[in-house]
C-alpha cells in the first residue's frame, strides 16, 4: 500500500469513462487503494475509453487506449463477470472489504446487479456508496442517458458559451466529466470525514446536471431575483465580462493561421496602461476613460483593438501588453502549453508513466501540491484483469486452485 494523505482508504471502483474514473484517479494519486472492476466478457468496453483513441502508434488493442491510461493511473484492475452469480458474489465481498464503492452506471443499474447500497450495508454497515449519474436516481429524467455534452447542454453550460446572435458554441470537450469527477472525489472525502466522526456510512446520489447548475449561480439568481432570463437579445456573450466591469475583455485575432490573443482590462488603470501601449490616437479619446462609457462602445472598441492585434503575432502582443501591466495571454495550443510553457513544466504537470504495452507515456498531473503528502503518479492504468490474482488472494483470501477455477469458468 503506497503512502499518502489517503493511505489505508480502499475504494472498490465500478465507475468508468472520465466522470467516474477521474474521481478515483485523483484519490489514488493521494494514496487510496483503488480497485477498478471491469467486465471480462466485453473486455471492459462498458467504458468507451477502454482501447480507444488516442494511440501511441499504429497498434490497436484493449490495453492501448491513451485516454483510459490517463484516467486510470495508479489503480489496480480486476475483471468480474457480473452476469454470473459467482461474479456478483465476489464483487460484494470486494465491496465489503472496501471503505467506499464508486459507480457511474445509468441510475438504478447498480441495484439490479445486487450491488446497491441497501444490499452492501447488510455486509458492511459503514459502507459508503457514491453514485454519479446524469440526472440522479429520482425524478422524471432519472432513466435518461447522458455523457458530458448532454449534461452540459441540459444544465446551461452549453447555452452560455457562445458569441452574440449565434448558435451556442458550447464546450469543445466533456468539461462536466472533469468537474463531475472532482465533485465526486469531494463527495467521497466528505462522506469519509463524516464516517470517521459518526461511524455511519451513507449513499451519495450525485446528479451531474445538478452539479453543473451550481456552476451558474449568479446567472440563476439574476433570473430568480431580478427576473432577467438567460435567453435574451445579445446572449450568449461569453468573451465579454459578465460582471460588466471589465472593458475591453475579449479574444482578438493575431497574425498567423488561427492565432488569437485574450486581453482584459480589470479597471480604468488597466485601460490607461493598454491605451499607452497601443499608442493609437483613438486610444487617447477621453470618452473611453471610464468603464461605463467603454461598455457603451464595446463593439467599436473591440474592432479598433482587433485592427491593432491582427498584424502582430501573439508573442508580440503578449510581450508588449504584459510589459505595460495589462492582463493578456495567447490562446495557447496544446503544444505551447504542454511542451513550451515553463510554468506547467515547473509544476511537474505532465508526469510520465511506463505502460507495459504503450511504453513511456505522459499523463495529466494534478493542479495542487500538498507540502507533506503530495500526489504521486508513477503507475500506469491496469491492463485488463492485471491484478485479478493479487487482489483476490490478498483481500478475499482466495487460493490458487479457486482462482484457476474462476478463470476457467469465465468469472474472471
Amino acid at each position, binding site marked *: 500500500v503506497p503512502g499518502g494523505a489517503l493511505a489505508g482508504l480502499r475504494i472498490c471502483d465500478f465507475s468508468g469513462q472520465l466522470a467516474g474514473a477521474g474521481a478515483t484517479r485523483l484519490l489514488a494519486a493521494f494514496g487510496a487503494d483503488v480497485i477498478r472492476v471491469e467486465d471480462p466478457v466485453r473486455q471492459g468496453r462498458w467504458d468507451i475509453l477502454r482501447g480507444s483513441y488516442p494511440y501511441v502508434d499504429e497498434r490497436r488493442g484493449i490495453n492501448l487506449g491513451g485516454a483510459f491510461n490517463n484516467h486510470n493511473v495508479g489503480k489496480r484492475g480486476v475483471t468480474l463477470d457480473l452476469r454470473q452469480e459467482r461474479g456478483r458474489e465476489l464483487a460484494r465481498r470486494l465491496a465489503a472489504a472496501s471503505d467506499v464503492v464508486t459507480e457511474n452506471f445509468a441510475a438504478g443499474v447498480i441495484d439490479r446487479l445486487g450491488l446497491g447500497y441497501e444490499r452492501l450495508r447488510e455486509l458492511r454497515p459503514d459502507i459508503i456508496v457514491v453514485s454519479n449519474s446524469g440526472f440522479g436516481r429520482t425524478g422524471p429524467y432519472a432513466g435518461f442517458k447522458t455523457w458530458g455534452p448532454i449534461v452540459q*447542454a441540459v444544465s446551461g453550460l452549453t447555452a452560455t458559451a457562445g458569441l452574440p446572435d449565434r448558435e451556442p458554441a458550447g464546450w469543445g470537450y466533456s468539461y462536466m466529466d472533469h468537474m463531475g469527477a472532482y465533485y465526486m472525489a469531494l463527495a467521497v472525502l466528505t462522506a469519509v*470525514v463524516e464516517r470517521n466522526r459518526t461511524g455511519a456510512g451513507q449513499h451519495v446520489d450525485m446528479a451531474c446536471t445538478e452539479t453543473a447548475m451550481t456552476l451558474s449561480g449568479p446567472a440563476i439568481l439574476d433570473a430568480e431575483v431580478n427576473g432577467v432570463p438567460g435567453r435574451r437579445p445579445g446572449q450568449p456573450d461569453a468573451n465579454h465580462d459578465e460582471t460588466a466591469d471589465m472593458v475591453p475583455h475579449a479574444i482578438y485575432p493575431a497574425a498567423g493561421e488561427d492565432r488569437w490573443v485574450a486581453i482584459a482590462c480589470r479597471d480604468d488603470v488597466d485601460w490607461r496602461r493598454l491605451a499607452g501601449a497601443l499608442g493609437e490616437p483613438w486610444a487617447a479619446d477621453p470618452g473611453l476613460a471610464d468603464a461605463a462609457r467603454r461598455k457603451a462602445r464595446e463593439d467599436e472598441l473591440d474592432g479598433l483593438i482587433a485592427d491593432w492585434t491582427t498584424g502582430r503575432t501573439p508573442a508580440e502582443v503578449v510581450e508588449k501588453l504584459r510589459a505595460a501591466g495589462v492582463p*493578456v495571454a495567447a490562446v495557447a495550443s496544446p503544444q505551447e502549453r504542454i511542451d513550451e510553457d515553463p510554468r506547467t513544466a515547473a509544476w511537474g504537470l505532465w508526469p510520465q508513466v511506463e505502460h507495459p504495452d504503450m511504453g513511456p507515456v505522459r499523463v495529466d498531473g494534478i493542479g495542487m501540491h500538498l507540502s507533506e503528502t503530495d500526489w504521486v503518479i508513477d503507475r500506469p492504468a491496469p491492463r485488463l484483469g492485471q491484478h485479478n490474482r493479487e487482489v483476490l488472494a490478498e483481500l478475499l483470501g482466495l487460493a490458487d486452485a479457486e482462482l484457476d477455477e474462476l478463470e476457467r469458468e469465465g468469472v474472471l
Partner: protein
Amino acid sequence: VSTPASTPAGPLDGLRVVELAGEHTAAAGKLLADLGADVVVVEPPGGAATRRLGPFAGGAPDPERSLHWWFFNTSKRGLVLDLTTADDRAALGELLGRADILVESAGPAEVQAWGLDAVRAEHPALVHVSITPYGRGAGEQPPSTDLTLLAAAGIPWSCGYDDRSLPPVRPATGHAAQVGGVLAATGALAAVLHRATTGTGQHVDVSLSAALNVTTELATQAWLVAGATVRRQTGRHAMAIDTQPVQVRAADGHYVTTGFLPSSGAELRGVAGWLAELGLTDQLEEGFWLEMGIAKGGVDRNSVDPEDLAIRGTAREALQLIARNTTALEFFEDGQRRGFQCGVIQFPDEAFRGAQSIARGFPTPVFHEELGRAVSYPGAPFRSNGAPWRIVRRAPRIDEHRGQV
C-alpha cells in the same frame, strides 16, 4: 426558512474554516460551509472586492446586493479585519489558533504584509490552502483574469465554431475559480484526513493555471499520446479531424443536440417509428437507407463502409428532420424516452426551473430580509442519506458577525 438554530448539522460538522476573502477563495469556502463546516469569511474594511461583481439585486451596484457575493458566500459568517494593523493580525492569529483550515488567495505582497508565510510555523496542525493563478511557489507573476487564465490553459483553443474565422470562445461564469474551488476543498479534506492520523497540518497549494490545464480532456490527451492537435467545432468535441454537426435549431427556435448517431437495429427502428408517428416519413430524403439499415439489423458505429455511412447519415438526417418539427424540449424528452442519448440546450435558469430540477427539489429557499422574501438558490452539488448539504444562512453583510466571532 433556514435559521442557524433549526438547521441540521452537515457532514463536515465540527470543522472550522477561516477564509480570507480573495479573488479565488469564495467557491471553496461555500462548498465547505454548505457541507457543514463553520466558515468565517474575513474581509478588509469596506468589504471584499468580490462584492463589486455584478449582477446586483435590483440592478444598481451595491456591495450588499452583489448576486455573485450572495451565491458564493452562503452559510458563512462575516467579519472585517484590517490586516495592515498589528491588532487585527493578532485577532487573525487567534482565529487561526482555533481553526482547522485556512483558505486564502493572497498575492505575494499580501502574503508578506499579512504574515502568511509564518502561519504554518505558528499553527503546525493547520491545513493552509492557497488558491492562486500559478501556485504560491511561483512568486511574482504577470497580472491575470479568468479570461487570460483560461486562454493560456487552452480552454478556448477547444471551444468555438466550425467557422474558425470567428474567435475562440471562453466559457463564461468564472470557471477558473470554480475549478480551483472544488480542487481546494478536496485537497483540504485529504489533508484533514491525514492530520487525523498524524496530527500535522500542511500547505495545499492550488494553481489555477495547472488545474485548468489538466481539465481539457481530449486536447491534452491527443497531444500527449498521439502528438495530434485538436480543432474547435461547433457544439461538439474538438478533434484532430472534422466531424459532423450535432446541433439543430428546433421548431421553437431553441437548439438541441442530437448526441450519438443511431446505429443499432433497435435505434434505427426507433427513428423510423418516431418519424412515422410525426407523419414525417415521406419528408425524409432517401429514406430507403433507413429501411436497409433496419433490414441489416443495424450497422457498426465505427464502420466506414459506404453503405453503412449512408445508413448512419440518413439516420442523422431523420433526427434533424424530427428536431426541426418539434420543440427543443419535446425532442429531448421524447428522444430520451425512446432511448436516444440526445439533449436540449437550455440556459441555466431554464434548467433550474425545469421538470427534473423541480421534481427533485433542487431549488433551495434562502430568506433575504432586504427583499422580504425567500430566493431560490441552486441546491446541493451532490446529496446523500447522511447528514445533509444545506444552506444555513444567506451570505453575510459586511462585518455582520463581529459580535459572535
